[in-house]
């Protein structure tokens, strides 16, 4: 088994002819207030659903957002389309900030940005037949020119997504899941958008149909020159379709890279854990490899852990770091930056691993000594910076970890009994 060539010598991924991004998301955050029960309904806290998320989408590019349930993927998609107002940050669509735009001003822009929903059963009006459903965006934007021509447009769209145009007068409930998702896609395509947000478009479908829909999406992307924002938790789908991947955990971006790069050298421990959950097609390799299993549950987004949000479940934090290093994880929020890997990861102690999908490769691609990891313990000043998503909490007391503390199986810090 050959080792994948790694380290500083690896050439950066081939530069894509990009130009300006069509969509650029900066420091996007969404807090949902939690209100107390009773008459007054005082605000008692916030759910930090999305926190400080930034990414760009270029023309004709597929950007995948991946993460487990509840990590804010779907909320990010809704925020991008301005379906829910952002708490802070900006979404810039071709030079126009959508977060400050009025809902009336937003309407013409919706022509360019469309969404395909996760649940094809819920996202189609049960009282409209397919013709009406697909014609609706055209009617809204005044592009349904006359009954004959409009009908023709709808028929073309239906044929385009592989549906029988003769079925136009049927209702959504008369179709199978895959066909309904195609109706959703036809509706989203009707206005010839430039960006399509795909919110887990295939998770509700069974695997045999998934492939059909994914291939359809790829064909359409080529034909229309669409940019995709593809939200999914299925890494095998992402590996197939993505140009670039944004990995999210508990509302924050933990790693972002070109798809090839990410799958070759995942460097955030969370990404590594996700990758190790992809089944390998080779049973021998599958048996040989060591799975990275995450313990515990996702912490509550109401009060996320201090410092690195992933530390409570991080295998690296539990098993590989010493207490001085752990102090960094507990106190300092890791920035999303390219350390010694060629792409950005939000981990103080990021290091690429290549042995996850390439069983037998070197355990660690680059020796830890080469990494630009922080040394010593964080200073009081570094450790007391306010967290980016709860700045109102202000400066915090630094948490110091003495030598008699270890991490138990649940990822909790415990004092060792002597």
């Amino acid at each position, binding site marked *: 088994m050959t080792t994948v060539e790694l380290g500083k010598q690896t050439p950066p991924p081939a530069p894509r002819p990009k130009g300006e991004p069509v969509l650029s998301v900066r420091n996007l955050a969404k807090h949902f207030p939690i209100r107390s029960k009773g008459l007054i309904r005082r605000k008692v806290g916030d759910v930090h659903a999305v926190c400080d998320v930034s990414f760009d989408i270029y023309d004709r590019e597929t950007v995948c957002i991946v993460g487990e349930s509840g990590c804010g993927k779907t909320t990010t998609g809704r925020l991008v389309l301005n*379906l829910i107002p952002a708490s802070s940050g900006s979404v810039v669509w071709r030079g126009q900030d959508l977060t400050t735009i009025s809902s009336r001003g937003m*309407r*013409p822009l*919706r022509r360019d940005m469309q969404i395909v*929903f996760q649940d094809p059963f819920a996202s189609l009006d*049960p*009282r409209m037949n397919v013709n009406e459903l697909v014609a609706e965006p055209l009617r809204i934007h005044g592009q349904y020119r006359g009954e004959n021509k409009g009908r023709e447009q709808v028929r073309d769209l239906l*044929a*385009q997504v*592989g549906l029988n145009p003769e079925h136009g007068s049927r209702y959504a409930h008369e179709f199978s899941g895959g066909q309904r998702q195609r109706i959703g896609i036809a509706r989203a395509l009707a206005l010839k958008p430039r960006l399509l947000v795909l919110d887990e478009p295939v998770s509700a479908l069974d695997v045999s149909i998934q492939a059909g829909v994914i291939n359809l999406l790829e064909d359409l992307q080529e034909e229309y020159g669409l940019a995709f924002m593809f939200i999914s938790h299925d890494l095998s789908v992402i590996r197939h379709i993505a140009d670039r991947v944004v990995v999210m955990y508990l509302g924050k971006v933990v790693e972002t890279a070109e798809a090839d790069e990410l799958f070759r050298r995942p460097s955030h421990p969370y990404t590594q854990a996700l990758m190790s959950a992809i089944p390998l097609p080779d049973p021998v390799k599958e048996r040989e490899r060591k799975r990275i299993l995450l313990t515990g549950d996702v912490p509550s987004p109401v009060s996320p852990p201090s410092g690195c949000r992933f530390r409570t479940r991080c295998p690296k934090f539990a098993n590989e770091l010493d207490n001085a290093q752990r102090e960094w994880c507990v106190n300092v929020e890791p920035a999303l930056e390219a350390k010694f890997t060629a792409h950005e990861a939000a981990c103080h102690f990021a290091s690429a691993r290549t042995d996850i999908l390439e069983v037998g490769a070197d355990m660690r691609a680059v020796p830890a000594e080469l990494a630009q990891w922080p040394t010593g313990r964080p200073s009081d000043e570094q450790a007391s910076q306010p967290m980016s998503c709860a700045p109102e909490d202000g400066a915090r007391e630094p948490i110091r970890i003495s030598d008699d503390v270890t991490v138990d199986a649940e990822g909790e810090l415990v004092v060792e009994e002597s």
Partner: protein
Amino acid sequence: MLETHETLKEGTQPGGPGVDKPTLTEREFTVKERKQWQMALRRFLRHRAAVVSLVVFVLLVLFAFVLPYFWHYKYTEFVSLCTQSNGLAGPCSPSLKHPFGTDSTHDMLAVTMRGTGQSLKVAFLIAAVGTGAGALWGVVSGFFGGFVDSTLMRLADLVLTIPSLALAAALAHKGGGSLVLIGLILAGVAAPYVARVVRGVVLSLREREFIEAARALGASNTRIMFRHLLPNTIPVLLVNATLLIAQGILAETALSYVGFGIQSPDTSLGVLISTNQGAVENQPWLFYFPGVFIILIALSVNFIGDGLRDALDPRQTRERK
């Protein structure tokens, strides 16, 4: 259900990327596009009771509005009395000359025709205006929520606390028993009931994903309310409308009973029943003929509503025997 046709028109072939051209065998199963109203009609016709009721209802309408032109007595016309078994002059019992008999002054058939017509008019006015206003009220309230919702619903509560019959009596009396006014007042009193039910449905509907989908397409609030929310409340509206028709006839009867409804010489089924209830013993035809017509109207309207609900529900696939 599937209709097949042999030839496939040019240019309407299912196709697109990745789809093979239909082969000859597939043609056999090519489905003809069906019109929406055809499917609704088909579903309605499957509902036997509704079809029978529709026939009955059409006959009722003809009876009330067309037959008076051909019947040789007018409801305002005085008729001569008959000699009864005790030798005194009194109301005639049903005969060929007076199929429904007479009361002490008029031909009962002519009066019943007029009464049925007036009752139908009032009932439909109440149902149409009451359901329409209530639907609008409920949709706006449920869709906007917040301050708008609170204001509109408190207003509904206010109307509901007023004893409706007393209000209607007071207002109708001023209007001198005009049919339209009575209908409008009773409709106004009925609207908050409909509004509350519709609001409840809208509150659950507006959280559904297809509403968000409409918004993502750029639909305006008006469009979401009238193209997505209202059509999805149709079953509820139909049930309420049919109930309101039955209730409307009864409410008008009650109003007439206390003397504030339609005033003599005009009449309605309610007026007939209330004035003739003392005659059940001796001249039963005076009471039972109008009574049967009230029941016929209420029943047939309810069945038609039931059939319409099935017909207009695209998810309805149940086959009726």
